[in-house]
């Protein structure tokens, strides 16, 4: 799997390259600035891009803008955005086109190599990887005045949280140490309580949940 990596801090870039190579990714390019990233995304056609939000030369949200532009030119181009802080505002922009293949994670998540690599693979496959912090922010905002959410059992809420992060039923089952059948039952209950249309497609399911949580804001 070919990866384009954009990170301006040498230590982090180096670490990410080694980490991804250890898990048999092919690093097509590891760049350190916005313009280089834009060029690499256009020319190398990677399977997935791992991008830091803040990049030179402006040191603003150059990386995010590059990623959004590239996805406009090539809809569905898988992009995993990394940042020192997560903002719902950015998550919303990344999810706006509704086509999936998007990830948005805190840099800290790299510490857990297994999970991080899993997230990269998921995004590359057109799935979603949202940081737990984003999901928690969404949930805590909705929870106050949302009755359907209030009707979820604590277990269902847990499942909803993991689902919104982009995990598959199998992954959720493994994480909560229950059978996949039990998770499927929870999922069906959640969708019924929130009034969402059930879909067999994991990715569509995640996007529906995220859209529901972000609704009305």
């Amino acid at each position, binding site marked *: 799997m070919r990866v384009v990596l954009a990170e301006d801090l040498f230590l982090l870039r180096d670490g990410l390259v080694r980490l991804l190579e250890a898990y048999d990714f092919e690093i097509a390019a590891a760049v350190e600035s916005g313009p280089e990233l834009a060029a690499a995304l256009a020319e190398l056609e990677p399977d997935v891009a791992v991008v830091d*939000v*803040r990049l030179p030369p402006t*040191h*603003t*949200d150059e990386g995010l803008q590059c990623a959004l532009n590239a996805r406009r030119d090539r809809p569905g181009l898988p992009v995993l955005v990394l*940042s*020192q*802080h997560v*903002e*719902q*505002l950015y998550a919303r922009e990344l999810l706006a086109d509704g086509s999936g293949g998007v990830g948005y994670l805190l*840099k*800290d998540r790299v*510490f857990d190599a297994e999970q991080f690599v899993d997230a990269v693979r998921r995004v590359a496959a057109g799935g979603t990887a949202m940081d737990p912090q984003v999901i928690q*922010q969404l949930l*805590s*905002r909705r929870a*106050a*005045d949302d009755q359907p959410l209030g009707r979820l059992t604590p277990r269902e809420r847990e499942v909803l949280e993991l689902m919104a992060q982009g995990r598959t039923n199998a992954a959720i089952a493994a994480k909560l140490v229950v059978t996949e059948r039990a998770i499927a039952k929870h999922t069906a209950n959640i969708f019924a309580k929130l009034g969402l249309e059930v879909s067999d497609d994991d990715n569509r399911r995640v996007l529906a949940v995220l859209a529901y949580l972000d609704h*009305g*804001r």
Partner: protein
Amino acid sequence: MTTIETKSGTGRTGTRGVGRAAVRGLGLALVTLPGAVLCFTLTLVSLALIPIGIGIVTTPWVLTGVRAFADWRRVLAAQWCGVQIPSAYRPVPEDANPWTRTFAMLRDPATWRDLRWLPVDMTAGFLTALLPAVLLFYPLEGFALAAGLWRVFPDGYWYGFVPVSGQASAFGAAALGLVILFFAHFLTPRLLEAHFRLTRAVLASNQGELAERVRVLTETRRDAVDTSAAELRRIERDLHDGAQARLVAMGMDLGTIEVLLDKNPEQARKLLAQARQSSVDALTELRDLVRGIHPPVLAERGLGDAVRALALRLPVTTEVEVDLPGRADAPVESAAYFAVSEVLTNAVKHADADRIWVDLHHVAEGAGLLRISVTDNGRGGAATGAGSGLAGVERRLGTFDGVLAVSSPAGGPTMVTMEIPCALS
């Protein structure tokens, strides 16, 4: 100083306005004449007593009284007629000895302006204050004469320039009264304003505005320095007790792991997990700290999106309207962001609101103005008094010559408006 005052009663010519001006003028005249005479006499006596020592003790007291008298007039001028008379006294050291205080006050040109003003106030000031009342009440006498009062004066009586000796000339007096009343209707409020303009002419130094500006700048600079010093202390403490301590713990764990690696791999693995958790916690704390110093979204996207991102973190539904064609200077953006943040926190904590609206826009008139309003549909009753969060916001904005106004009737809604002069780039 930074709160916007509402102006009232300027040149109003309704019947009520006329009556009010006359009554106010009468009251003013009755109080100012004895007040000014008393102040002036006491000051002269006190100054004369300085050579024999008693004056050293009394002068600060007397001059403080004079200043209070003048300040009271400044307040009335602003409240009744919208005439702003800047007060420009130099600060007097509170706990200094009477000698220092006396001479500090005597060296202040404002003191001498006060003393020059007192004689003017007891003469011209008295007349201009009294005239509105005279113009309103003298015609009443004319009407009373026509109504039969003339019979009381069988030897003739002068009403203005009309000699009253019978019913016919008494009607003449009434007619004159009517004419005076007609003019009074236009003149009364203006005369009262003229009184305050006269006061301003004598009392305000031509450097008053400059002095006021210096005073404000001194005050806001002190606030800014205090605030930033307090911020630095907080950051130091947070780093010291938080991230720094966690990094130390992490280093210690790693050292122990090195030793345990061969002897007890199981224990080493446990410690490794603990070290990783420490690094996660340290990062979380650093992230929160950074958000408090300068929010990353503000650096990356500017004020509009930073406020949008902030609104998304609130537990209350918040609508954000932004109309900013460019970006303000970083310090202004930062001040505006934290002001909005504080006001929003206040609204969430105290107002019990279920909806908040934030409006940010730039007004191009003059040198430009950033205007921010935060409205909530909560229970109202917010105040800018000392100790409230809003007072802190007011101080922060003061550094940038910004102002804050609060409208928060009991029962709501609350609207906080902030304005900061700035240009966009």
